[in-house]
């Protein structure tokens, strides 16, 4: 397993380098000079002095050739230096390390909520296939799937204010045990729940026709035991794979949720960095995102044998 993990890391490093080169090139050559943006954003007769802007660019090292800047960035990265924000001057590492825990906690809660809600619902729908309950669950899942976070967030928030006059707007971050986490968590979980419900339902329906299920039932095993012991276990393998992938999309895609509900996470930081063309920050977030992809995939791979011993056997046989 250790060799497997090391191999994955070895593959990950060049992949990340290519991704970062692409991101750096996009930020460097694309629209949005960070120093110019600082000046352009101020209203009114901003003193647009090209000499002064050039002096600022020089002091920030932004007038060097692309490859030199990128090389320096990678060199600093190898020495544990993520650099400083181009707009605020703050250490990027401090900014990212303040934001990342919020996103990770939120994503973890969303995954737990998704698993707790969606897997049972998917099973119930499958076990009641083509009934009204099945249609209701599937219909609700489709409905949730169709609502993007940037619509659901403001709608729920405004709805809360309209329905409950005097209620406070759930804005800000107070940790996972704070009541304000409920709405962002719901909004963030809508689409994953819909996805996992449909996937669990489909997987359970497939397993229901397997011989071992029929045998268990023929032996008179109680239905609840059949469902939990015989059906759920094989179903979990693809579902956990999907949950791992969802974890990545939740962390990376929580931009609107974090903006609407004022959560100081990576999504909010990403938006700010993009608006400012603050590429040391964008690169650090990209690095974390790609690291997360790799770790999630690794975790899923490690979990496979625990969920389905056949996966372990097949690996050994190779």
């Amino acid at each position, binding site marked *: 397993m250790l060799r497997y993990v090391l191999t994955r890391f070895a593959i990950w490093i060049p992949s990340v380098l290519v991704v970062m080169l692409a991101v750096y090139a996009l930020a460097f050559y694309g629209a*949005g000079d960070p120093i110019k943006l600082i000046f352009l954003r101020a209203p009114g007769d901003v003193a647009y002095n090209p000499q002064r802007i050039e002096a600022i660019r020089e002091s920030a090292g932004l007038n060097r050739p692309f490859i030199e800047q990128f090389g320096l960035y990678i060199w600093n990265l190898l020495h544990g230096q993520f650099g400083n924000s181009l707009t605020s001057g703050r250490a990027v590492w401090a900014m990212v390390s303040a934001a990342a825990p919020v996103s990770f906690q939120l994503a973890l809660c969303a995954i737990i909520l998704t698993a707790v809600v969606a897997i049972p619902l998917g099973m119930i729908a499958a076990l009641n296939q083509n009934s009204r309950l099945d249609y209701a669950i599937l219909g609700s899942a489709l409905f949730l799937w169709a609502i993007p976070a940037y619509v659901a967030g403001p709608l729920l*928030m405004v709805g809360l204010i309209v329905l409950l006059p005097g209620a406070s707007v759930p*804005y800000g971050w107070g940790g996972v045990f704070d009541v304000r986490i409920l709405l962002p968590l719901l909004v963030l979980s809508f689409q994953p729940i819909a996805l996992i419900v449909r996937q669990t339902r489909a997987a359970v329906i497939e397993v229901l026709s397997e011989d071992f299920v029929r045998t268990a039932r023929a032996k008179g095993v109680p239905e609840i035991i059949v469902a939990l012991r015989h059906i759920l276990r094989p179903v979990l393998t693809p579902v956990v794979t999907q949950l791992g992938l969802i974890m990545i999309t939740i962390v990376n895609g929580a931009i609107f949720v974090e903006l609407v509900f004022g959560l100081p996470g990576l999504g909010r930081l990403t938006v700010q960095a993009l608006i400012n063309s603050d590429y040391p920050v964008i690169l650090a977030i990209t690095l974390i995102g790609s690291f997360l992809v790799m770790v999630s995939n690794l975790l899923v791979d490690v979990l496979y044998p625990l969920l389905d011993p056949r996966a372990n056997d097949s690996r050994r046989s190779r």
Partner: protein
Amino acid sequence: MSFDQSDKTNLSRRNALKFGLAAGVGLTVFGMNARIVLADEGQVLKVAHPAFDQDWSPLRGGGRTFRWNSIWWASPMYFDSQGNIKPYVFTSWESADNTVWTFKIDPKAVFSDGSKITSADVKGSWEVASMPNTKSQRADQVLSKVKGYAEIAAGSANELTGVATPDEGTVVVTLAAADPIFFMRLANHIAPITKASQSRGSDGEEIIDWYKPENKPVFSGPFKLTSIDIDAGKITFEPNENFFGPKPKLARIDITSIEDNVTATSLIKSGEFNAHTELVTSTIIQDLGPEFSAGPLIPTSQHFWFNISRAPMDDPKVRQALIMAVDRDGLFKASYPDGPHKKADQILNSVPGADNSGFEPFPYDPAAAKKLLAESSYGGPERLPKILFVGISAPAIQAAAQFIAEQWRQNLGITAVDMKPQQDAYAGPDQNSVQIFRDDVGTRVPDAVSYLTGSIASTSSNAQNKLGGYKNDKVDSALAEAATKAADDPQRVALAQQAQKAFREDWAFIPWYSQAMSRWATKEVKGLEKNLDWQIAEPWNISIG
């Protein structure tokens, strides 16, 4: 295999009761939270701030954080909400030749620790604001004519040689060229007065985060910074008990970053917040009432600028046709039907000379516009290249741009129009295509020459970038001559008016609106009047209820 599915779709009475109980508990939890928040209110100004700013240094001279500088820093002088100049740290100013200026510091002026504000602090504050690493966005605007500024701004020096401090209560400024309105340029918070020994390192550069409470800074304004959590976007100010001006009425000011306008509107409606840094939505009047965004007009205006060096704007007849084909009354109604802004016919507003300027508004004449387009080198709409706008971001701006495009379609038959939000796209991939920039221009001093110098003089950013290198010798010479006249000389205004009239003949912009400086505060908030620099003119007067 057989599953009994008959009862699974029915919700039992017991389950319905359980569901009801759970919903009740959920709603109660939210309700309790609401009461806790509301119980916290009082004389606390709670401000929603629309950006997740990472830099609150008062020396930046621009950006949204700058708009709160007046609550925690004192400036040399300030303009009140009526545009009158008032003494602050400086009690007097005089110059015999408009080149050497002498300023006297209020002997009562002290920092929050009780220490005197000295001429050395003033000089040091200006110097650090001028250093390139400080990234001050508008130090130029205040200090560019001071001797030594050019060297500091270029990074080759760290001292303003034109500023002398003969004693701790006197500042003598020598300019590289005469400037009759130099005293007006100082009357703002662009380079606020800080304790130089705290804000500036031995190398002359700004000390990072020197203003944060953990570094025990002292403040010169009516409030002091007591907590800042940049990562969470929260910042708190409390009264400066040693403030040398009137005693502040508020107990606290809380500023919280809330980027989403829907959320901010909800928070203000629910009473959890009572002010905003800049809330611009198309339904603001309906959502929060007319008082919320009411305010006096300031010397800033928004227009659609033509890049005259790019096709098809390089043909004056095309420009004229495009302008004459737009009903500007309709344009204004499409964007701000309920205010708070006012339709603009010219560039100047809210400065001496803005009224009766002699600038004849562009006419709306679709038939003449069509004829002009046919007479142009393009011969009609078919051969025009696609017209591309940038700066089309907020909903009201989108409405205005779409109105213009529709007028061109109806009146001229032009269909190829594209709009992009990026304001700086001329530096990006569309740089060779953009012909129209939606942007504001303005001035921070109530002076027509300063306004037009930053808008249409060939040296201005607007002329160089958005107007595509615009240069009109009549405009430049009139403004250059006007700049030598005293602030109260009628010729100063007359020459500025001449420059504006000369600019009109080049048909280079579609006038849109003159900007009102909105309060962005609920009607319960009193004394939050702002000046032409977007600063609260007298923050000590703010009260609630």
